[in-house]
């Protein structure tokens, strides 16, 4: 082996300019690695989609037993009767209400903080940054249990309101980070131009700043909605006798999972994908 390879570089180097060889090798290597990346990405996508495919398939399962774990035949009955399991749809409504209200609250509070941080000078900046970072560095279970400790100590009964408090809390930091990124990436020359053209501050904000930040605020709100809607841990600790959708799924997992839960999961995936594709199409049209 060594004999066969060894003479090659010696033979090649005096004839060819050295610069060609690495460049060519580099290109060949890159072609290989490029396709490797495509192949790898395809595998990763398959892995990511496997559970979704299972969720969708089992939403059509003609399940007769308690657990929806083995395939028994195709049926549309769960899709035609998604609220057929008692408690499922009320839990869904509760989760949607919580997500909507906590998104509203966190987006408002978080956007205000983001504006203050990016656009203003104030004392206590470091302390503010630490206070915003801390909830993101704290596992949800710690937040959930600390909130319960507080409510127990103060004798506040847990329920819808206490879950809402927790959801707004863990969403604020994510909103701040998202809106802040947008504000920092924004070119301030448009606002300066408006001011130079004698627009007053409020007018500038309303006509220039706000439209420019809106995409950031929208993505922050979507993130907040998703995080709140999907939260199990904070709700489980602070719910009293309120049952949110993830809590319903948790309970069902102990008792038996009806296919309707898969219907809801599949529907959520379809709605999210649909909204995302629609927003993408709108972006493309306006671009």
């Amino acid at each position, binding site marked *: 082996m060594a004999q066969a390879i060894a003479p090659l570089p010696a033979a090649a180097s005096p004839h060819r300019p050295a610069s060609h060889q690495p460049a060519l090798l580099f290109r060949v290597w*890159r072609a290989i690695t490029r396709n490797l990346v495509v192949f790898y990405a395809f595998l990763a996508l398959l892995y990511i989609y496997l559970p979704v495919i299972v969720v969708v398939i089992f939403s059509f399962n003609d399940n007769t037993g308690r657990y929806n774990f083995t395939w028994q035949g195709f049926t549309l009955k769960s899709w035609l009767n998604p609220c057929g399991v008692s408690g499922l749809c009320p839990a869904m409504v509760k989760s949607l209400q919580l997500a909507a209200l906590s998104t509203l609250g966190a987006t408002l509070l978080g956007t205000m903080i983001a*504006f203050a941080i990016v656009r203003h000078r104030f004392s206590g900046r470091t302390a503010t940054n630490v206070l915003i970072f801390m909830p*993101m560095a704290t596992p949800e279970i710690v937040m959930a249990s600390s909130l319960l400790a507080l409510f127990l100590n103060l004798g506040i009964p847990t329920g819808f309101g206490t879950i809402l408090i927790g959801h707004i809390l863990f969403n604020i930091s994510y909103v701040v980070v998202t809106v802040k990124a947008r504000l920092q990436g924004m070119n301030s020359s448009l606002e*300066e131009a408006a001011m130079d053209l004698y627009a007053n*501050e409020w007018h500038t904000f309303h006509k220039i700043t706000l439209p420019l930040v809106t995409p950031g605020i929208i993505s922050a709100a979507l993130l907040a909605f*998703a995080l709140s809607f999907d939260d199990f841990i904070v709700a489980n600790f602070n719910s009293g006798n309120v049952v949110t959708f993830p809590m319903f799924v948790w309970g069902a997992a102990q008792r038996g999972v009806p296919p309707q839960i898969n219907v809801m999961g599949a529907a959520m995936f379809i709605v999210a994908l649909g909204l995302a594709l629609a927003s993408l199409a709108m972006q493309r049209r306006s671009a």
Partner: protein
Amino acid sequence: MSTVPARRGLLSGTRWMPYALLLPGLLWLALFFVTPILTLLSTSLQEGSISTGFRLTWRIANYTDAFWNYREQFGRSILYASLSTLLALVICYPLAYFIAFRAGRYKNLMLLIVVAPFFTSFLIRTLSWKIILADSGFVVRVFQTLGLLPAGGRLLATSVAVVAGITYNFLPFMTLPLYTSLERLDASLIEAAGDLYAGPVTAFFKVTFPLSMPGVVAGTLLTFIPAAGDYINVRFLGTPAQYMLGNVIDSRFLAVLDYPTAAALSITLMFTILVLVGLYVRRAGTEDLV
């Protein structure tokens, strides 16, 4: 006089403006994050039971007792979270790289396709893994055919299933920061490395990877933190032999009503993570995470 509004942002004329903007949000954080943590700290130093009531006796031994009794679960939390974070990095980096450099004008579409499955609800996804890894499922059969698993071997109810579940569930938290930092990366720098005779592997490890460090740090943190506190994957995919600290906190708080132990464990988990994060961020050298 046209220089006057030069760098005046929104309503910056008034000095109290930033405080007015900060006040409501920071007040919320102070009331419902700082106060609860302080309450938890106080609870962790109390003695008593649910029937006799709890009194603050500054019992530090709550911490040593809790830690000693649940050292295994504590160790597993850190181990499982570290493994999942590493696996997620290995899975997501090439994917984020592909989207950032190879997806062209379909970048945003690809990103959506990657993130969309995570809207099926955390618990439903985890239950779905339960079906996939089930004893009679095709994954187990494939593993057995390949000889990776003995004939009667299982995946479900093992630590493999738990780590796989945790890895899967937090993938978007890894992918999105990685993508953001790779997408911002100037591709001409990689080409320059090639022009300067760096092989593709050298170019990757000397240029691409170091420049994507902010994304790597943010992604690993955003994955590790929720993973270390997770207890849902264990409940669905594991057994009590795989219990993590989250399971103990959950049952101590909600079932056993042993608040001091649960509080001491929560505080321990929180501070362990803060210390690990602090050390890690300092080593990685990126301070501007937030």
